């Protein structure tokens, strides 16, 4: 009798534990959210949030294409999202479960529609540009007071890079962003998919290759903040986070972000739900939570990226909404360009070129 009661109690306890432990698994970029939002989501919904991070679209894409990632919400960049939608990796969003979608900003939605027609599969989380993170003091020390801090000349002219090599230069390890930048620099279409046009970027990159210390997509935040490097080609908000970390550390390092005067790549990070998400209902709740104006504002205030949420703008701090590095003015905005995904053959050419540039073979 006692044994039977115990077994029953155990079964009841187990099943109620299973029912109570509703989970949602989110896979987002590193350094990309105010972590207080995560606990706030758990408190409001009672759903346990498991939050993992990545630092490259390629890693995410491989998980999506392999299937069975176990994630409920993932955050690919527009170009990658488009290809993954074609491969059948995502499920359509259910508008009925996303009342906060009314907060979205049509200006951004019209742009993200080129990757995700009708924005059927994704919502915009953040957007930004790819530009220059500079340690102002060190760069001026090396190149003089009139150093071209906002120009591609800084990183694509060998005579500048030769001098900068002494204080350290990092490039993003993201060929799909750097190749378009070089094309823009030499006056070609940054979104060209023509192999011969893409090949024109090789001499430019090879010319500065000896002076690049590392190609990496997340280390530069700390490296800039610590003063280990003086220039990084990086993402806007990441550089601004480095600026803040340096200011907090009071180590005398002053970091600035500049979009390229020649034109910068504009990208959109989109939240989407994998087709095989274990808990799509909770995933929708998470998306709706993120689209809440105050929550989205809190995220932007924390990570220094612009978001695609118009209603959140009234809650943004002045140093976010008022900073043209984050919310660009009309002129910079018109200077931003976007790209489309490469087909497989072109992708191979681009990756091969990138490997050649990185390793010298």
């Amino acid at each position, binding site marked *: 009798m006692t044994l039977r009661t115990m077994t029953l109690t155990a079964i009841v306890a187990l099943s109620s534990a299973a029912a109570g432990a509703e989970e949602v698994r989110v896979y987002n970029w590193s350094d990309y959210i105010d972590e207080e939002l995560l606990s706030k989501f758990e408190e409001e919904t009672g759903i346990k949030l498991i939050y993992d991070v990545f630092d490259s679209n390629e890693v995410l894409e*491989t998980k999506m294409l392999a299937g069975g990632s176990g994630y409920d919400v993932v955050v690919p960049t527009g170009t990658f999202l488009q290809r993954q939608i074609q*491969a059948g990796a995502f499920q359509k969003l259910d508008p009925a479960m996303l009342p906060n979608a009314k907060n979205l900003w049509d200006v951004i939605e019209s742009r993200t529609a080129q990757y995700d027609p009708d924005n059927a599969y994704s919502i915009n989380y953040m957007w930004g540009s790819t530009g220059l993170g500079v340690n102002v003091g060190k760069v001026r020390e090396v190149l003089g007071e009139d150093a071209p801090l906002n120009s591609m000349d800084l990183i694509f002219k060998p005579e500048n890079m030769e001098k900068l090599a002494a204080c350290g230069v990092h490039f993003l390890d993201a060929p799909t962003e750097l190749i378009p930048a070089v094309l823009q620099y030499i006056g070609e279409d940054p979104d060209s998919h023509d192999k011969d046009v893409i090949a024109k970027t090789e001499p430019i990159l090879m010319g500065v290759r000896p002076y690049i*210390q*590392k190609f990496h997509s997340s280390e530069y935040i700390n490296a800039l903040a610590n*003063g280990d490097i003086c220039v990084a080609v990086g993402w806007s908000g990441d550089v601004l986070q480095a600026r803040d970390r340096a200011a907090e550390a009071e180590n005398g390092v002053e970091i600035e972000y500049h979009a390229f005067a020649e034109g910068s790549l504009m990208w959109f990070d989109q939240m989407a739900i994998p087709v095989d998400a274990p808990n799509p209902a909770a995933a929708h709740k998470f998306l709706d939570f993120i689209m809440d104006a105050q929550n989205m504002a809190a995220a932007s205030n924390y990570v220094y990226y612009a978001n695609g949420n118009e209603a959140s703008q009234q809650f943004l701090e002045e140093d976010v909404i008022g900073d043209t590095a984050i919310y660009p003015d009309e002129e910079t905005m018109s200077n931003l360009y976007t790209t489309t995904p490469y087909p*497989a053959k072109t992708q*191979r050419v681009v990756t091969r070129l990138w490997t050649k540039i*990185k390793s010298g*073979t």
Partner: protein
Amino acid sequence: MRRAVLIAVPYLWLLALFLVPFVIVFKISLSDVALARPPYLPQFSWDEGILAFLSELDFENYIFLTEDDLYWKAYLSSLKIAVFSTVLTLLVGYPIAYGMARAPSEWRPTLMMLVILPFWTSFLIRVYAWMGILSNEGFLNQFLLGIGLISEPLIILNTNTAVYIGIVYTYLPFMILPIYAALDRLDGSLIEAAEDLGCSRLSAFWLVTIPLSKNGIIAGSFLVFIPALGEFVIPSLLGGSGTLMIGKVLWEEFFSNRDWPVASAVAVVLLLILVIPIVLFQRNQEKQQEAEQ
């Protein structure tokens, strides 16, 4: 019956953990890349019949590997890094193992513990710690600048030097333990005999100790060489972009190109390269066991 079961267990192990994964990887290496989930065709389905399935497979990806010099350069560079780091690990590890074997016996468990202790911390964290030590503003440079030995920080992080340091550090216990085991069993009276017969200490070491610890050296070297050849984490964290290793090339095929078939072909070739040292290692182990019996 019992004997059959005993023999079956290791073979089942081999089948489940080596042969089945290998056949899957080999099959993918014969497929074509496609925009699908997973991103290759044909996928694992027999709906159209086995012959139709097989007819879609070919060796195209292996031919592709020979057409681009990137791949053999990466294999060669990995081999070079693996050989050099094995030699370095041996040079560092042998004296440590020797010292341990010569230490008073009450110390030995403690020394052994000290060699094994790093395994208590995650491998990844230990490699990250080296980033902190080796960076331009890191502990090593701070120290050397502090005592006035150098005036400019040494650039070590993100170079091949850092990769060697990382590999030697990480795999050192794998070198020390087998050598220590060999030296520990060494009969001290043999050395005495050599010295009585007129050998200097150095030549006794060279003529007696080294040959008798040969099996330990060989075992240790293979335990370092084999994982170092396919190493990915250490070169990607400590190495610079100029560090060309097959593990990184494989990563790029898999992640950047989304070309699982070519990535699988690279992996199969890597395995073939490793088969030679692994077979040699097995032979050595067997010989050692026979010698002991």
